[in-house]
């Protein structure tokens, strides 16, 4: 496997004031509002989301259906109208002209959950992989064939499969093709939205391993969206926990999993099935935890961390050691920060 493909097209866009330390992706105050529909008022699907992803690292984004994690991914890729700021490689994507944004798209790609519906059934593998190369012209027309072979090799598929159609592959192989397509134009940043949740557990492990090794070889950064915290632990450096459109906890994976601060993070961690009959039987026999924290009362006066935001105007985000932070929103009455270790 020759390595230089990753260097070929990587010309960082230049912008005044961009420092080397700026992360590949910087998201500030991101908001997405779904407009009112009959019978329903407007919904803030994503509200005040701040995220940084340094080069060559993975941020896991976890939460349940409806928490806004997929919407966040789509808003970052500018596939949805949003407010706030999204900077990729030091360039602000919000308000960019369509032509300019199209040019930025080769730096940001995505891998979706369902490998059955995200590949065109009437296109061969080589057609699927060549398309982004033609659109973004990252290699000359004469180099496309070689690049397709290179991509197949990169994701562990034999060059002989290039004439085949998606239905001839298993779910795991299809996801490899989707990953090869995402990496075709050598992006700096890839949103992986539940890339393994439709696959058998053994295949899940293989795909996670592939994504990790590709990151090491190519230096690509991932936003890895998943509802399964155990999978996120295998791939992510940092993790953001999303609830009701907001980030309620963010920090290094090891730190957040060992010392969760927010009650919702604890609920998610406890819900992951454990492959041990005694442990799992005991868990299922225990009374279910109230997972709907939305009804938690707004704190009057002091919050759980002892701040009075209304009076001192401090943010609802509370920082601990090592850049580990949590929100004081959505805490059920009576739950104190230390209780979440129970």
């Amino acid at each position, binding site marked *: 496997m020759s390595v230089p493909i990753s260097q070929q097209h990587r010309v960082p866009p230049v912008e005044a004031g961009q420092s080397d330390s700026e992360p590949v992706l910087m998201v500030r105050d991101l908001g997405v509002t779904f407009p009112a529909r009959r019978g329903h008022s407007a919904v803030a699907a994503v509200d005040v989301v701040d995220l940084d992803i340094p080069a060559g690292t993975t941020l896991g984004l976890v939460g349940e259906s409806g928490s806004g994690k997929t919407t966040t991914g789509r808003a970052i890729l500018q596939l949805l109208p949003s407010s706030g700021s999204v900077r990729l490689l030091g360039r602000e994507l919000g308000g960019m002209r369509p032509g300019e944004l199209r040019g930025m798209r080769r730096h940001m790609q995505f891998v979706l959950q369902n490998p059955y519906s995200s590949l065109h059934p009437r296109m061969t593998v080589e057609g699927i992989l060549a398309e982004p190369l033609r659109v973004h012209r990252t290699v000359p027309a004469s180099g496309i064939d070689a690049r397709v072979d290179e991509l197949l090799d990169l994701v562990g598929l034999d060059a002989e499969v290039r004439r085949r159609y998606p239905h001839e592959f298993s779910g795991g192989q299809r996801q490899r093709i989707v990953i090869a397509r995402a990496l075709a134009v050598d992006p700096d940043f890839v949103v992986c939205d539940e890339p393994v949740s439709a696959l058998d*557990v053994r295949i899940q492990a293989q795909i996670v391993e592939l994504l990790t090794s590709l990151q090491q070889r190519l230096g690509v950064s991932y936003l890895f969206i998943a509802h399964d915290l155990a999978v996120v632990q295998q791939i992510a450096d940092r993790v953001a926990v999303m609830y009701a459109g907001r980030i309620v906890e963010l920090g290094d994976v090891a730190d957040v999993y060992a010392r969760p601060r927010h009650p919702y993070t604890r609920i998610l961690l406890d819900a*992951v099935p454990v492959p*041990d009959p*005694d442990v799992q039987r005991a868990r299922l026999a225990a009374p279910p935890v109230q997972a709907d924290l939305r009804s938690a009362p707004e704190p009057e006066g002091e919050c759980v961390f002892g701040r009075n935001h209304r009076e001192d105007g401090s943010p609802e985000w509370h920082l601990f050691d090592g850049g580990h932070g949590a929100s004081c929103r959505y805490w059920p009455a009576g739950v104190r920060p230390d209780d979440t270790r129970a």
Partner: protein
Amino acid sequence: MMSGDPVLPKDDAPVEGEAAALLRVRGLTATFEGHGHRVPALRGIDFEVGRAESVGFVGESGSGKSVTARSVLGLEPEGSTIERTGSVLFNGRELLGLSDKQMQDIRGRQVGMVFQDPMTSLNPVLTIGDQIDDMLRRHRGWSRRAARSRTVELLDLVGIREPAQRANDHPHQFSGGMRQRVLIAVAVSCEPELLIADEPTTALDVTVQAQILRLLIRLREELGMSLMLITHDFGVIAGMVDRVYVMYRGEVVESGSVDAIMHSPREDYTKALIQAVPRIELPEGT
């Protein structure tokens, strides 16, 4: 089953004796036929499900676990035909060879089923109340009024709030987890002796998955049903079943009590499946 498998049921696991078995399957084969090909899906499997027993079937895509479930139900895969041989004894009655009409009577009434995708398993144009009423009226011959009254009880049983109002809603008005609850209500509406659940939580969030698993445990206790739980995930199986059959390429490669299999798996394939379950690792001392 592995020949000479000495794994004994542990503790108070129900006896595997044939008299006690609600479902007894012997030498079941299933072969897909289509486009001039014959593809074997089941290569002669044996298993039992005892009364009020909970049994897991674990394997990956293509292992034959879903074909096993559908064979008990007499369901044909879409777009191809399937040829079955062997014996499927349910309550002492041979199911292989029954007519479609006879099987329809068994499905729903004596054997309930819940599949993975809660959206495609419900009729989108009917209210969920109508769909459950329909089961009760068809299988039990109840009046419209009696059926609706039971439907509301069932929706309450599976944990749907304001069941009388929600009965008038259509499937799209429910979340994925709530739809799966509705499907479970449909499946248990005629108080079947056996509930077959094929990947019932695969498409769901972990928190919702735990709720659905708890619901299945509670219903099994309240209704005294047997359960066949089919999944690729040993994490899901762990707290749910008494015994496990591990399937690979249309065969049962290992079987025994869930504790024996998960604590000391014999086959490399079983070990690999257990090993692959993503689990949260915490550093020592936390």
